[in-house]
């Protein structure tokens, strides 16, 4: 057996260190340098849809939006574990637009498996007191289970205090399984929200944490902190139905409007800016969007790079 010389040791260690270091640089670079992408799929067909057609439209819109940013294969590596994080905050039915559209979620699950994901988990930390009821009412349980996704309830005793070193929040309990996944796909719905004006991509990250009731005292900074920690890679913003008033919980069908659009992208700020415009607001009037842009989480000017596709 040959001796392992000092020189070999040094060269090998140096090489190893270089690989490790460059890996870090490369992954960081991939996160930061890759140009932001975004696609908006809008329904151009007839607007008076029956429930079955609406379902079909939601599926098509989602497929097209994902297709236009290069498909999920870019994000989902073979055999990976993906966490789909819809908004399942409130114990109300899909028609009220208080939660993400179940057909959008179901389509993403299917696309994840098509892209080679081994496991797809779906879960949120609801605001309504009984998660099991909330998941059922939202229609997401029923949509996700037949596709083979794991519908996960976030057990309150399983959250782990995690350092996030934000401007406001230094550490907060986060559900560890979400952090352990290879990819988190953030899938919010656009809703009116009394405190943050609108709830969209950044606000949706409040569903991975606990002890969030003090956030309302400085919502934009808290949202920026948690979004930065979560390192968003892909978000899909559901505007099939939107909640125009009495948000974030709603409950009145009169407050719901059919917008028939789905956007997908890598830049949460850009997506939220689009969402604000969909709701007839100026993006800079939405404190979390403004804060996100100021702190470098993304660009408000989505129009400079977003593709728009008409789907019918």
């Amino acid at each position, binding site marked *: 057996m040959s001796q392992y010389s000092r020189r070999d040791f040094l060269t090998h260690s140096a090489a190893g260190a270089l690989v490790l270091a460059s890996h870090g640089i490369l992954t960081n670079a991939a996160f930061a340098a890759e140009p932001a992408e975004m696609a908006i799929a809008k329904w151009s067909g007839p607007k008076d849809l029956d429930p079955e057609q609406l379902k079909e439209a939601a599926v098509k819109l989602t497929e097209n939006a994902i297709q236009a940013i290069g498909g999920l294969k870019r994000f989902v590596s073979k055999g990976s574990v993906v966490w789909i994080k819809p908004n399942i905050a409130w114990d109300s039915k899909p028609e009220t637009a208080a939660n993400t559209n179940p057909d959008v979620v179901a389509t993403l699950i299917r696309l994840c498996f098509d892209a080679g994901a081994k496991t797809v988990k779906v879960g949120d930390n609801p605001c*309504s007191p*009984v998660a*099991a*009821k909330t*998941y059922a*009412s939202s229609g997401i349980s029923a949509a996700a289970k037949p596709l083979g996704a794991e519908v996960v309830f976030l057990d309150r005793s399983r959250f782990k205090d995690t350092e996030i070193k934000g401007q406001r929040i230094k550490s907060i309990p986060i559900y560890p399984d979400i952090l352990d996944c290879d990819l988190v796909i953030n899938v919010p719905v656009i809703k009116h929200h009394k405190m943050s004006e609108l709830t969209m991509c950044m606000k949706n990250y409040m569903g991975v944490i606990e002890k969030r009731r003090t956030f*309302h005292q400085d919502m934009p900074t808290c949202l920026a902190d948690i979004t930065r920690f979560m390192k968003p890679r892909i978000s899909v913003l559901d505007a099939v139905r939107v909640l125009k008033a009495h948000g974030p919980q709603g*409950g009145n*069908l009169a407050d719901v409007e059919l917008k028939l659009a789905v956007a997908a992208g890598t830049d949460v700020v850009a997506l939220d800016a689009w969402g604000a415009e969909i709701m007839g607001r100026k993006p800079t009037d939405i404190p979390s969007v403004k804060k996100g842009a100021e702190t470098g989480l993304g660009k408000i000017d989505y129009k400079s790079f977003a593709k728009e596709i008409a789907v019918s």
Partner: protein
Amino acid sequence: MSQAVRRLTAARVRRVVQVLLLAVFFALVLLTRFKAAAPVASPDGKAESLPALQAPAPLLKIFFLIDPLITAVTALTAHGVPKIALWSLLTIAVTVLLGRVFCGWICPMGTIHAIGSRLFRRRKNRKGFGDWSRWQLAKYYLLIGLLAGAIFGLHWVCVLDPIVWLTRTTSTALVPAAQWAVKESSTALYQSDPGIGPVRIDKIVEPAYQFTNKYVFGLEGSDHDPAYIGGGLILALFAIMVALNAWRPRFWCRYLCPLGALLGIFSWRPLLRRNVKSESCNQCGLCGISCHGAAAIAPGGAWKPMECLGCMDCGESCRRGSLSFKFVLPWRKEPKLESIDLGRRGMIVAAISGITALAAMRINPQARGRIFNPTLIRPPGARPEREFLQRCTSCGLCIKVCPTGGLQPTLTEAGLEGLWTPMLVPRIGCCDYTCNLCGQVCPTEAIVPLALDEKHATSIGLASFDVTRCIPYAYGRNCMVCEEHCPIPDKAIYCLEVEIQDRSGERKTIKRPYVDPQKCIGCGECEYVCPFKDRPAIRVTSANETRHPDNQPILGGKEDYSQG
């Protein structure tokens, strides 16, 4: 006697039946919980995911429905019982024919005490353990006193009913204790995540925990952390009662149980009687020692069917095969019976004591409806307080089924008369907006089952802000968590923008929340989510509850469905 025949003694069959029924009892209490249902689209486009129970409601209440004491007392106090409770007449019929077999074979509390007695059974010096004692009359006097009180509206005897007692103990003490043990231990392992080399312990423990949490306790996807005010007291009383079996076997059944006393009265001359063959009996006294109910003076004395639990252990204990049970026509004198003489004086004293006890409970302004306890928030559908107390058995089924854990047993809030009845404590858990399960499981309709739209139109209280604590009022910051969570579709909490000056004199605009008393139904979700955990800055009190016109400060109340 051959071995094969011995295996089939009545006493052995009885033990199997008892254990099975006890298991069924515990399973039914554990299954008294909600089942999440997917929304069902209705033709008008509204989809409702109605809260459902894990098992049909009549099945969950089956032990209550066959309990004649609850039916009798509720009929006396409330002058009405749910029709389905008339099944308890079947128990009376069985008792008239066979004696107190309900106590010996069916009653889950009886089974607990039978097991307890066996565990504590002395090996030596058991002589006299089966001897009848005059103290066994205590349960009859207790029953008479409480029934006399019941005629004047006291429902309290049900607090001591064995089915009620065991249900309450199981739901508010035994289940929470077991759940706590499972959760605490597995959480400790999960959070510290110890490993033996590459083996991670939580890889094994977690699935076991998740299985138990989901299927045994049914707590998956629920905020509900089963813990109850005064649960320790309930557990302690139960433990004392089990421990007393060490002093006298089946202490509870022999001396205290009011249901046993009621059934005892009906087994005055049962058709199934204990028969001793005097030619082969050598008066050894083994049957007396083995007797669960102390129904016979051993040896050779007369049998007291009112005290006999029909357990058949005496037949099994007899080494000479000279003891058996057989059917006899009611007018026959043999085998000899001995009935119990309660005495006229004793019965009168007991009745007067019961009525006095009721008077004592009502020497209280709250019991007379002069004042209202602000913390006594009753579940939606609860009848007006007096009527409610005339029906509520304090069994705790509603407390068990409440998916948020907000329903808690009272201690002093409703007076002694209302001990362990349900109240909503919103900071522990709110009344879920789309849930009406408490009314569905209530065995005596003390909580009237409400449809969801009826529930949404029923106030159980009213929220109010404590502006010395509420963050936008007291500390000049936005908060509005309560407004966000208010489940009323067009919001009972609304916000107005106000301009304030901060410490440095700078002017800023903040949103201040207000309660709309016409819309608030007192569900308490606002109180539950308020960032103040010690004393929430928005609190619900019983004010404006629909069931009490006298407790409504706001003009324009809601319709009272509890009368329906």
